[in-house]
């Protein structure tokens, strides 16, 4: 690395042409170089092998709307702390286009490369039409039946719910922006199973995870294809529906599970960085529907402490993959809300970058290493630690100030109408499947059953297991995937009580993302931690045949 100004920030801001190169100018991402480095440092667990992109293949630059929310944040000036968005910036032409392996602590240069993800700098726009594949065409059985849909068959024009106004469409619904598909009625449901499909870098069969083959053999895209506008009649409120009344019984009441907690008005959190009390998100992409919400816990509302949880969910269009992360900043770390945000965004960006490279599956150790390194870089202000001692000190400071749990994962539809995916975690955030009314924890270790005394001890980032130990899941067509922090997991327990009863409603997606936030903000005495929950379904589960 050159001058301090040309160090990590140079890579971060894409100012240096050498991208992921080490101090001696060699390419850090070359397998042989990496392995040699590892052999010199036996104390560092060896990462799994890192598949290189196929020869001659350039990683793609995704369209801007494929990026998670943090990626659009402006980069900080040199010498300042990095903004909350993880490092992923374009670089000049000629920058390396292959991914760097996960770094080891003894190799700060390599760490930086991993933290910034494989060289987004080198990503080049996909040729027009490549990512979107073949023009839209209905599947063999037509757009309405192309996707297996047990339980909730679609009915064009059917109202999404019968007891109120039609739900708002997710803002990022592919149909909302598809050329030739401008809606005049935002509440109108579209047909199901009619999204186009394609191959793309990840379309080949993958070990353990389904390749995207589309619900009807088409490519997931909202860019290229079109379908006749006006094919579905506009939705109107059902006859006899109750008009909305602000004074209706229980209209503004908080959902209560068991004995409610005390009622009070929340105190504001510190103003910088801005941290909303609650956020929610949700959309449907080809084959999958997601809802995400994060709410500040009552303890933090009462104390004027920011929400320390965070979450990110995004869509990798080329491979038809939902990429997500959920994190819970550790309370004893003074700025853990910053840590959880950095961890989520960095992990998701690194997964996206690896998918761009056409890797059959992300290297999960690298994903965790990238998130951990981002926390360390926050401490150093983006400057590469000069030696192992300084790196150790920076890690210790990151543990003190930014410690956070993390669950990151991917999900894709499989050929049978279900969903397959993989998850990895650090700390006690977790994931569940909801099938036939039963919750099954995917990371279950059985410890809590035997413990007389419950502990809140977690081993969070920047520590991470090496190698990472991802778990796989397979969601049946009628199943739900839930990924959440312990603010949700602890009150849920085994899901046999009032909280389980409450969340069993997620057997199908709520029509609006805000519904999940409202649900997640349930009141239950002594359970006052922040709560974050991602819920994911096969898209055919949208209520009322909405698609």
């Amino acid at each position, binding site marked *: 690395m050159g001058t301090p100004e040309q160090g990590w920030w140079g890579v971060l801001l894409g100012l240096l042409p050498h991208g992921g190169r080490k101090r001696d100018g060699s390419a850090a991402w070359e397998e042989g170089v990496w392995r040699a480095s590892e052999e010199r440092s036996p104390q560092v667990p060896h990462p799994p092998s890192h598949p290189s992109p196929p020869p001659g293949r350039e990683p793609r630059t995704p369209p801007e709307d494929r990026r998670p929310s943090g990626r659009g944040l402006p980069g900080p000036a040199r010498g300042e702390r990095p903004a909350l968005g993880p490092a992923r910036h374009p670089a000049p032409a000629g920058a390396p286009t292959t991914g760097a392996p996960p770094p080891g602590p003894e190799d700060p240069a390599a760490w930086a490369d991993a933290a910034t993800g494989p060289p987004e700098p080198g990503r080049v726009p996909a040729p027009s039409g490549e990512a979107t594949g073949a023009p839209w065409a209905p599947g063999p059985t037509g757009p309405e039946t192309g996707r297996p849909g047990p339980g909730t068959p679609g009915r064009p024009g059917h109202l999404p719910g019968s007891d109120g106004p039609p739900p708002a469409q997710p803002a990022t619904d592919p149909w909302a922006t598809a050329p030739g598909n401008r809606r005049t009625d935002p509440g109108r449901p579209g047909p199901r199973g009619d999204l186009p499909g394609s191959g793309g870098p990840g379309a080949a069969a993958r070990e353990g995870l389904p390749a995207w083959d589309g619900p009807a053999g088409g490519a997931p895209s909202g860019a290229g294809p079109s379908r006749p506008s006006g094919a579905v009649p506009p939705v109107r409120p059902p006859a006899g529906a109750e008009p909305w009344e602000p004074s209706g019984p229980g209209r503004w009441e908080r959902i209560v599970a068991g004995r409610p907690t005390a009622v009070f008005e929340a105190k504001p959190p510190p103003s910088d960085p801005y941290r909303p009390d609650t956020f929610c998100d949700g959309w449907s992409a080809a084959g999958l529907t997601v809802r995400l919400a994060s709410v500040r816990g009552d*303890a933090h509302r009462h104390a004027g402490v920011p929400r320390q949880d965070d979450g990110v969910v995004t869509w990798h269009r080329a491979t038809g993959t939902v990429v997500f992360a959920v994190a819970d900043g550790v309370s004893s770390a003074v700025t853990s809300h910053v840590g959880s945000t950095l961890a989520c965004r960095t992990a998701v960006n690194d997964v996206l970058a690896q998918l761009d490279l056409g890797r059959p599956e992300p290297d999960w150790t690298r994903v965790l290493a990238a998130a951990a390194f981002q926390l360390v870089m926050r401490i150093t202000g983006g400057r590469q630690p000069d030696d192992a001692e300084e790196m150790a000190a920076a890690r210790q400071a990151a543990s003190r100030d930014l410690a956070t749990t993390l669950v990151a994962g991917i999900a894709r539809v499989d050929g049978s109408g279900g969903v397959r995916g993989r998850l990895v975690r650090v700390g006690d955030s977790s994931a569940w499947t909801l099938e036939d009314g039963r919750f099954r924890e995917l990371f279950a270790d059985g410890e809590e059953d035997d413990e007389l005394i*419950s502990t809140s001890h977690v081993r969070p980032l920047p520590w991470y297991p090496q190698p990472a130990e991802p778990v796989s899941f397979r969601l049946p067509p009628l199943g739900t995937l839930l990924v959440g922090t312990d603010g949700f997991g602890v009150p849920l327990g085994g899901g046999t009580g009032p909280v389980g009863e409450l969340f069993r409603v997620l057997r199908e997606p709520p029509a609006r993302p805000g519904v999940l936030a409202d649900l997640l903000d349930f009141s239950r005495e002594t359970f006052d931690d922040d709560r974050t929950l991602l819920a994911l379904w096969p898209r055919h589960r949208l209520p009322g045949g909405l698609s």
Partner: protein
Amino acid sequence: MREAEGQLLPVYLLADESGSMDEYVGNLNAGMRSLHMALLREPMAAAKIRFSVLGFANSVTERLALADLRDEAELPRLSAYGGTNYEAAFDDLRTRIPRDVRTLKAQGYRVHRPAVFFLSDGLPNNGGDWREAHRRLTDRAQTPAAPNIVSFGIGSVDAATVLAVATGPDYAYVSVPGADLGNCIAGFFSSLTKSVVESGNSMVAGAPTLTVAPPEGFVMAIDEV
């Protein structure tokens, strides 16, 4: 795994009721009232606390057991009599705490490691080897529900003894030499109240279960040894 009814922190006030405390019984009871009032103003924290009050002299007297202070009209009154028997106090806790934890678990609660706030004004002068009883109580291999003990010594107490009672050097305080004991007792209850509230508020958020607010009018016992 069943769904938890709630998350609780059992807190025990283990107060010296030996005869030497007679002059300060009024301060003790005033401190109890202020603790009660403070927790009533903190219903979210109070919901997570189950509070027990034990007085010890020659033996242990249970004044309050596993109470939800929001449901109590008033707290019991302490008194002063007899000697100072640490062994009886620790033996009682070794039986009582595991039993209480099992009771709460059976009611469906998640139970965090119990906390004992120990207050004494002098050296033990009654009973046998209290150190062995203390070791059995605090050894987590022998007593899985072993509590954290925060120890406060006032008056003519020996700093080394206060330090030995606490389960960590950060949990041991002695009053400033020459300080008014009434004020020291008020400082103790102020620290107890803050500690209970802060521990209740933070115990589910990944922070250490027990937060101890340094008492006014006290110094760390380890600094006096």
